[in-house]
């Protein structure tokens, strides 16, 4: 298990190495990437801000929820903070399991929960201005 909030680029291979064990037959790794567009607008770059002291424990809690549902799963998560360019990896969730069905389900569950409950925020710098992305809403920076 490994949970990181970090300024440095994320290496998904390190997370996969952290979840590998001899009984693992399947690893599912999700990477979130900075897209070049949002809300129909060109995006130039992003800034991510985290409440790191809370974000890491929240990730740990999600890892525990996964273990409760898929006891053989091993989980690693990392989220980047700071300035990110198009194409950079913002978040990675990697889950290993004996078989692939559980690996896909547990990984999907992990990223969905991370996106709803880990206190990390995205500021989007786009052609039409700068916005805080709050759930489905984009709120212009005053």
């Amino acid at each position, binding site marked *: 298990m490994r949970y990181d909030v970090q300024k440095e680029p994320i290496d998904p291979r390190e997370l996969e190495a952290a979840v590998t064990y001899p009984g693992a037959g399947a690893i599912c790794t999700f990477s979130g990437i900075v897209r070049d567009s949002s809300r129909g607008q060109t995006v130039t770059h992003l800034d991510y*801000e985290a409440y790191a002291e809370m974000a890491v424990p929240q990730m740990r809690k999600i890892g525990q929820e996964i273990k409760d549902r898929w006891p053989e799963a091993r989980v690693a998560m990392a989220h980047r903070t700071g300035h990110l360019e198009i194409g950079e990896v913002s978040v990675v969730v990697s889950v290993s399991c004996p078989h692939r069905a559980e690996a896909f389900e547990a990984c999907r569950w992990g990223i969905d929960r991370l996106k709803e409950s880990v206190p*990390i925020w995205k500021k989007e710098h786009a052609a039409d201005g700068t916005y805080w992305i709050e759930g489905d*809403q984009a709120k212009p920076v*005053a």
Partner: protein
Amino acid sequence: MAVAIAVRVRFFARLRELAGAEIEALQVPPGSSLADVYDALRAKHTTLPARESVRAALNQEFADWNATVAGGDEVAFIPPVSGGRG
């Protein structure tokens, strides 16, 4: 009136910008709830949004608005996280 208690308030993201502060020390009456703390702050930083669009965390865990704060607690007011389909 009983002696006030001191809590440490943290703001993040859009709330940090609206409050104009990252961290704020605040004195509140004993028995204050998280809602009381937020209302006190909103009276001071009038641009802070209505409580409905904000979540509260107490000592780094999500908490109910009616949870009571104690001296030395870390309180955070948290806008919706980035979420979305990305």
